[in-house]
């Protein structure tokens, strides 16, 4: 049990009870000092269980918070928190963000007002409350971030507003009024870290009297690496179509996340992506090309769409019907990347090829041996014997070797049969190779030795001939001089793409980020630039492009500017807006939260410290290490080691086949006798045996795996971090609340039934719950995220925020609202500590909608409460979950 002590306007701790007893003895503390051991109440130190040598009760009951109402001080104490040594602060690579401040949270309990004192961890994690956890009252002093030293976003933001207002004036429009702090708060949290603020975070901001609190909040959120990454990752996942179901994609995902966390400049990131080569273990950026394996032409269409905002696909088959690009333009661009080879194990010196070469050696040796002549000609099959004999050099050969035609034929037939025998013998080995290499089919990108791009066979234009080789060339901007060396050429292409001189590179990212912040691009669509694209505010666009370049493509700094504009704080544009209509930015454009934002917001209502809760991280690391270990076993070890093992695996498979033939006979005869049961039994038996054989195969060859996991030596940092462990513990220790003492047996039983049911729903919901960035993506069909429009990661930007019936049914009838209200959940725990309906209504509104309820809302809820009691509180949570106020960003 952790206990905090409050004395002389300062907080101390946490301490264990034993330590406190020492301090009491040493008179560092007195019995009248205030202590908090249950995360909710400050009581006299003397009342802390165990302080007076009595054994601690095994579990603290939540309703004990109601004890000693007369003891709870109705004292408003401002804490000036000072440095605590509690937990080590997770350091990020470039910045160390450390915050202080007075954080006040108000929660009303019976008999008085108690203020919680809480500080904030660097990742804005919220203090946990609940039956067993104490509040982390960590506070730290503020330090300037080492990276973005003195960049002040405000001048640029002001300039943007200036340009916007000038435009509005020219259109005879007025800018929308500014929104309240409450709306700003919700909006900025969603925009930067992709979820609504917790009530503690909200209070922190709303109660702050700092003059610069809006700016400070923006900076704070931008430096919340975990939260920012969780949200910004989705931007990239949608653009790059990053799934997680194939092993190489895990490398990709984790690498992108780390780039975001480290705030890699945009041009740098893109450069790495489009020049990604080599093994993904060494260079995860190579996954960019693995994603479109086998579709090199489409990959170029995608690159041009994502980074240059231009749709080139149509020009793959003919001159673009309504843009200026010709088919030749398309092919010249595609020629830059066409020779990228993503196949595994085709290089002549790869182990896999060496295994095949060995097959060839063996069968040819058998052929020659059986033929009896070292120089016996290679004949493919029996049908070719006569053909060979008809060749001009045949008689000479026969004479030299003293053979008649018949003898030759005989020898040939024997030799061919011998060769086939070896081939068949080696077939199981080949099968085992296929099975084993299947685990690492997408791990490498390299240059093809000889694969020039040719014009299609039906090329119809004058400027080239069908099947003519295409020389790479850029579609606009500066020309790249011709380079023979493939690597140099690839890098030159990447340079061209990401150059500030490239007329579309900067423009496109600036517009995408603008749309992400304000709901509508400066030009639309964001990825279909043509010469006819209307840009209503060219000066604004130019300014933003210059800004991005001045900031060296620092995405966070750029967004920092956008969030500091007045535009961001204006009321939403409320009228209908159709695509194609002009948008003047009197205010941002209203939209629904993305699927991930909704899910993450609900998660934040249920789990504490959501930004750093990563329950799947260990498994991800394991899978990543596993892939690498498999590669190591197959290609990383010398062929002298690998070949014998593979052959041995083939031998196991060969043995299995013999058994299989026996089984097949028995099974067929069982079916023939209509003994389906026996047939099925034998079939299942056979399946088990085959699987066992393949397991043995793997164990034999994949020596770098142990128990299907990489050796510890090859794993890096796979232990679970403390936050995740704490939250996992909290979940696994979830318990139903005990019924209050004043219930009759029937009521008690009903209470317990309800609690058990609620706990079951809680467990079902949280079992697979974490922020979307930590979950499988795309989620399975039928999962909340897919129902609400998460991209299937098959097509660029494929997410949607359209309404659908499954969405409505989900919110209407799923147990989500029950999980939120369970006493083990974050919001549910806070609710359980409150007594009056007014307090509960207040808490619910402020947690879910980030605002206080107004009087008519309170009245309306209370009117139901009068008749139906606590059920109404449940209904209120349900109602707000289903409200458009929850899912739409105001």
């Amino acid at each position, binding site marked *: 049990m952790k206990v905090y002590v409050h004395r002389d306007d300062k907080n101390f701790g946490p301490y264990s009870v034993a330590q406190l007893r020492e301090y009491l003895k040493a008179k560092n503390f007195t019995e009248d000092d205030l202590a908090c051991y249950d995360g909710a109440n400050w009581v006299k130190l003397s009342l802390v269980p165990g302080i007076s040598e009595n054994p601690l009760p095994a579990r603290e009951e939540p309703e004990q918070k109601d004890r000693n109402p007369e003891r709870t001080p109705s004292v408003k104490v401002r804490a000036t928190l000072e440095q605590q040594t509690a937990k080590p602060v997770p350091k990020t690579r470039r910045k160390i963000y450390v915050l202080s401040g007075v954080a006040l949270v108000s929660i009303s309990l019976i008999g008085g007002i108690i203020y919680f004192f809480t500080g904030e961890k660097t990742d804005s994690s919220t203090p946990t409350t609940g039956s067993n956890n104490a509040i982390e009252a960590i506070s730290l002093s503020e330090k300037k971030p080492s990276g973005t030293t003195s960049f002040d976003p405000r001048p640029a933001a002001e300039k943007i507003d200036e340009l916007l207002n000038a435009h509005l004036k020219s259109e005879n429009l007025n800018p929308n009024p500014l929104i309240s702090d409450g709306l700003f708060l919700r909006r900025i949290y969603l925009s930067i870290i992709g979820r609504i603020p917790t009530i503690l975070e909200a209070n922190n901001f709303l109660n702050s009297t700092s003059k610069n609190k809006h700016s400070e909040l923006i900076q704070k959120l931008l430096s919340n690496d975990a939260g920012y990454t969780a949200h910004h990752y989705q931007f990239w996942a949608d653009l790059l179509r990053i799934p997680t179901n194939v092993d190489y994609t895990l490398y990709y995902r984790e690498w992108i996340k780390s780039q975001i966390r480290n705030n890699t400049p945009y041009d740098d990131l893109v450069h790495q992506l489009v020049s990604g080569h080599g093994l993904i273990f060494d260079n995860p950026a190579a996954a960019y090309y693995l994603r479109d394996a086998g579709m090199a032409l489409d990959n170029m269409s995608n690159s041009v769409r994502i980074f240059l905002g231009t749709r080139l696909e149509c020009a793959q088959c003919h001159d673009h019907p309504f843009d200026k690009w010709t088919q030749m333009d398309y092919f010249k661009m595609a020629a830059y990347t066409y020779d990228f080879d993503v196949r595994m194990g085709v290089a002549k010196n790869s182990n896999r090829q060496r295994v095949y070469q060995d097959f060839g050696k063996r069968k040819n040796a058998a052929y020659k041996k059986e033929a009896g002549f070292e120089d016996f000609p290679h004949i493919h099959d029996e049908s070719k014997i006569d053909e060979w004999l008809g060749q001009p050099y045949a008689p000479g050969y026969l004479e030299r070797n003293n053979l008649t035609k018949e003898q030759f034929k005989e020898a040939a037939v024997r030799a061919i049969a011998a060769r086939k025998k070896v081939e068949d013998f080696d077939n199981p080995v080949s099968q085992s190779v296929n099975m084993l290499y299947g685990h690492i089919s997408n791990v490498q990108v390299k240059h093809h030795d000889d694969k020039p791009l040719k014009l299609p066979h039906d090329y119809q234009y004058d400027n080239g001939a069908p099947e003519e080789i295409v020389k790479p060339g850029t579609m606009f901007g500066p020309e790249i001089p011709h380079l023979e060396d493939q690597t140099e050429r690839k890098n030159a292409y990447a340079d061209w793409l990401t150059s500030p001189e490239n007329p579309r590179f900067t423009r496109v990212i600036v517009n995408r980020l603008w749309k992400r912040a304000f709901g509508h691009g400066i030009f639309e669509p964001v990825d279909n630039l043509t010469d006819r694209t209307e840009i209503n505010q060219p000066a604004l666009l130019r300014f933003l492009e210059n800004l991005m370049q001045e900031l060296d493509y620092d995405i966070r700094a750029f967004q920092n500017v956008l969030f500091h504009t007045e535009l961001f704080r204006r009321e939403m544009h409320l009228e209908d*807006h159709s695509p194609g209509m002009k948008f003047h930015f009197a205010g941002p454009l209203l939209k629904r939260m993305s699927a991930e934002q909704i899910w993450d917001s609900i998660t934040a209502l249920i789990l504490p410290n959501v930004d750093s809760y990563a329950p799947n991280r260990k498994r991800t690391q394991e899978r990543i290490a596993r892939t690498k270990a498999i590669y190591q076993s197959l290609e990383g070890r010398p062929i002298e080691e690998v070949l014998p093992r593979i052959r041995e695996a083939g031998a196991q498979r060969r043995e299995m086949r013999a058994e299989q033939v026996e089984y097949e006979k028995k*099974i067929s005869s069982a079916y023939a006798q209509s003994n389906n049961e026996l047939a099925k039994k034998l079939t299942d038996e056979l399946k088990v045996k085959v699987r066992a054989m393949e397991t043995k195969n793997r164990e034999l060859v994949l020596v770098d795996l142990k128990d299907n996991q990489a050796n510890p030596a090859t794993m890096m940092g796979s232990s679970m971090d403390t936050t995740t462990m704490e939250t996992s513990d909290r979940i696994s220790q979830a318990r139903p609340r005990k019924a209050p003492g004043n219930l009759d047996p029937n009521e008690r039983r009903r209470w317990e039934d309800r609690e058990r049911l609620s706990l079951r729903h809680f467990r079902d919901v949280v079992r697979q719950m974490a922020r979307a960035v930590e979950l499988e993506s795309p989620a399975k069909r039928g999962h909340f995220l897919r129902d609400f429009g998460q991209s299937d990661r098959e097509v660029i930007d494929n997410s949607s925020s359209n309404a659908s019936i499954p969405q409505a049914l989900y919110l209407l009838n799923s147990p989500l609202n029950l999980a939120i209200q369970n006493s083990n959940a974050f919001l549910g725990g806070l609710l359980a500590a409150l007594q009056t309906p007014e307090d509960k209504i207040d808490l619910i509104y402020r947690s879910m909608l980030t605002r206080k309820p107004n009087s008519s809302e309170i009245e309306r809820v209370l009117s139901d409460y009068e008749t139906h009691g606590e059920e109404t509180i449940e209904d209120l949570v349900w109602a707000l979950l289903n409200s458009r106020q929850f899912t739409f960003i105001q």
Partner: protein
Amino acid sequence: MIKSDFNRRRFLELAAGSFLGVSASNSFGAAGGKSAFPLPADPAKQLIYLYMEGGMSHIDTFDLKTSHKNQGSTKPINTNVDGIRVSSHLPNLARHAEKLCIVNSLTSTAGDHEKGNYFMHTSYQQRATIRHPGIGSWYHKLKGKINPTLPASVFIGRESRFHGSGGFFEPEFEPLAINEPKSGLKYAKALVEKTRFDRRLNLANDIDAEFLKRYHSKPIRAYGHMYADAVRLMDSPDLAAFDIHREDEKIKSRYGTEPFGQGCLLARRLIEQNVRSVEVSFGGWDTHQNNFTSLPELCHIMDQAVAALLDDLKRVGKLEDTVVVLTTEFGRTPQINQNVGRDHYPQAFTSVLAGGGFKGGYVHGKTSEGAEEVIEGSMTIPDFNATIAHALGIPVDHVLYSPTVRPFTVAHKGKPQLGLLS
């Protein structure tokens, strides 16, 4: 190739139209206006699409070659149609041969699962830049719903990336996905009793009222409509269609207890309630190894379920107006491989059609002695899909545009094979 009568201005019109949300579906039929394939006077009204995922072996199911060594240990049985034989593992379907239109001459070049699956579902080659809609979504888009409360297209099957999807059509054309037929439509029932549900719905509407007065743009209104639809669906007797446990036990047991069978039962129930199209997927046909030991079980499940389905559709009077398709991405190598299995074989394979105006007791096309080559009645996948579309009354030359104004048709360049229709 650009059609000669396209011109740039027309494209711009269409581009503008799609930007403004105007559907271009009315504006562009075949060049010249009249379709090359006049539609049936009374086309089928619904579709059941049964997909055997993995590549169903043709020589071991419907295209037997008993006297050839390629046959292996699969035995034939007679059906209730003279001259048609099927595998002994399909005894139930053998009794329904008079309903079946067996196409033994499908041919394709797409030999891997992803590409083959995609090609069969869309008639287009898989690309990394766009997703093409499946027939069910085309059907919904061009012909709309019959039952306004229920979704127009439903997919029943376990998680897989490939099935008839809504492709580049608007999100409302995406089929509703049901992963487990025995669980029906997820979250379709309230967790609280009716009076309380109504009460909380009331509460929700009341506390949202002010917000909705202020914010009434299209996306918000759309959500309102969707909620109303969802609540209506919850109350609707049609919802019962999703619950296979309401089915008479005798009938239910005819379908078997496997998910595929239950999926077929669910499909029938949905068809009865006038859902336009239902796809049911059944995986596991990729018998590279143990072909002869795996197929009996697979065939048994499929045989039982599909026979029950055909029986039932007949019983409820829906068979004539419902096209039933049984298909797969490719066949399997007639030559048995080293693992006593068969590998991918797109050169020649089989699919089966029934109901919806298709000839019954009919075999189209022929393969060689060893089932290795199509020697008669060769049909490409686009042709196959065009025939299905045609039977459903979908014009195969009706062009719809993707959001980037690329033109597409329901079966790409496929031509309906009218000889399959009676």
